[in-house]
């Protein structure tokens, strides 16, 4: 592998595999809004826009729609943002304090809702997101504390809950969960979580140890794909030259 300058480049870091795994969520997404929450999903969305999802819409994190160079191409205040959600023209990648085997997600509180042991953010837009536009999740530190048997409060609706309300949940879709260990989907008969790929350098045992429920593991588990030389160059030299991705996932 070489950089644009012809010097050999360092091999991909774990953070960079995570960027690729997040970017892939928006492949061929068309003219929809990418709403990444967190550093690595943001780098991933910008990488997707610059490569295999050129029609994607990006925000500046406030009220403006911007192209990869920062040129303003639209206005998207919170109120309109919510209309895009309910209109379905968006794929959000949210965080999760807890997530379970069916993709139920919690960012509200830990413990009893009436008097929590730990108050978190609140439900935010997770209920509306999950009933209206594709919702993926990004978890920078895969652990049994996050991947739990049962979440304390369902904010983002998972596949089992969605199945109980087939009409209201007809737009429900959780394309993927990306963590620092691998990529997960719900491509199983009962829509429970499945290991879709391991990031290079991660073992099956590591994932099993860090997950608080039994994952579906296929016979052959592929590795998360390698970034192309061009993608590595874009990540390192254009999109995230300050290496902020390393603050979210270390080596």
């Amino acid at each position, binding site marked *: 592998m070489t950089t644009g300058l012809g010097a050999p480049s360092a091999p991909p870091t774990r953070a960079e595999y995570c960027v690729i795994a997040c970017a892939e969520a928006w492949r061929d997404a068309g003219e929809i809004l990418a709403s990444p929450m967190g550093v690595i999903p943001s780098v991933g969305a910008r990488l997707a826009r610059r490569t295999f999802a050129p029609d994607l819409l990006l925000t500046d994190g406030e009220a403006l729609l911007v192209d990869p160079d920062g040129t303003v191409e639209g206005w998207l205040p*919170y109120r309109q943002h919510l209309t895009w959600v309910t209109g379905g023209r968006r794929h959000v990648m949210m965080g999760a304090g807890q997530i379970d085997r069916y993709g139920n997600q919690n960012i509200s509180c830990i413990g009893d809702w009436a008097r929590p042991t730990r108050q978190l953010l609140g439900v935010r837009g997770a209920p509306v997101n999950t009933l209206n536009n594709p919702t993926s999740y990004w978890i920078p530190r895969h652990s049994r504390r996050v991947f739990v048997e049962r979440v304390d409060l369902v904010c983002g609706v998972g596949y089992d809950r969605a199945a109980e309300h087939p009409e209201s949940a007809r737009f429900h879709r959780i394309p993927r969960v990306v963590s620092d260990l691998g990529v997960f989907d719900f491509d199983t008969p009962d829509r429970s979580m499945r290991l879709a790929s391991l990031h290079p350098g991660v073992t099956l045992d590591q994932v099993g140890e860090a997950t608080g429920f039994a994952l579906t593991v296929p016979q052959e588990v592929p590795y998360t794909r390698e970034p192309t030389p061009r993608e590595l160059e874009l990540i390192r030299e254009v999109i995230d030259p300050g290496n902020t991705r390393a603050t979210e996932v270390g080596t």
Partner: protein
Amino acid sequence: MGDKTMTADEAVARLASGMTLGIGGWGSRRKPMALVRALLRSPITDLTVVSYGGPDVGMLAAAGRIRTLVTAFVTLDSIPLEPHYRAARERGALELREVDEAMFLWGLTAAANRLPFLPVRAGIGSDVMRAGPALRTVTSPYDDGETFVAMPALRMDAALVHVSRADRQGNGQYLGPDPYFDDLFCAAADTAYLSCERIVDTAELTKAAPPQTLLVGRHTVTGVVEAPNGAHFTSCAPDYGRDEAFQKQYASMPWARFTARFLDGDEQAYRSAVQAWHEAEGS
């Protein structure tokens, strides 16, 4: 046309304990903090607060003024979790009616339109239905037959909002990129108190800015308060950004000490104390 100007203390004097109070802005952005500080100086308590929550909620919760909170989140943005709100929740100090961001918007919209509720495709399947025992569903009367949450109107006794400019009659102008939901808060409340960075003549409002920046209409406003730096320490773009250093101080200092140092006097005393703090910190 009536001159609606008044001081923050005069605005708060028109409020009463037990009221339902809406607070505009979003997270730690363009919050009517001068009005919140005036509220903290008053004896008013037992409030139902309706807010996309930031330090407004944190301060009122820390001071024990909130009986019920209606919200989708409470955050300081650059500091994700509001420490004083967290502490209040973890000691069971307030009742929470937790709704989703879109449900909240439809509640405001219903109230502004004098509707009892609006249908929303949010909440079903999630635990906001468990958290909000008063929530009902409604079935579409058309062929699709879909079931929605019937989000009840969030009608309020009073709304507090902060904008960049206003005239003396209560026409309010925002100059930042996002209106948030401030006009809806004003329209959804029986009375509304609008603070602003600067009061200007009506003609001045559209001299340098387009008419679509006129966010809040005077027909929805009861009182206008000139409050320079009135959103401090939250942001009020483009007039100023968030005072991150001071926000950090707010988030890390015990509430009693913060109150004693910054909130015991009037708004002028607050400004002086903040300035003295910045000078001492060299920030």
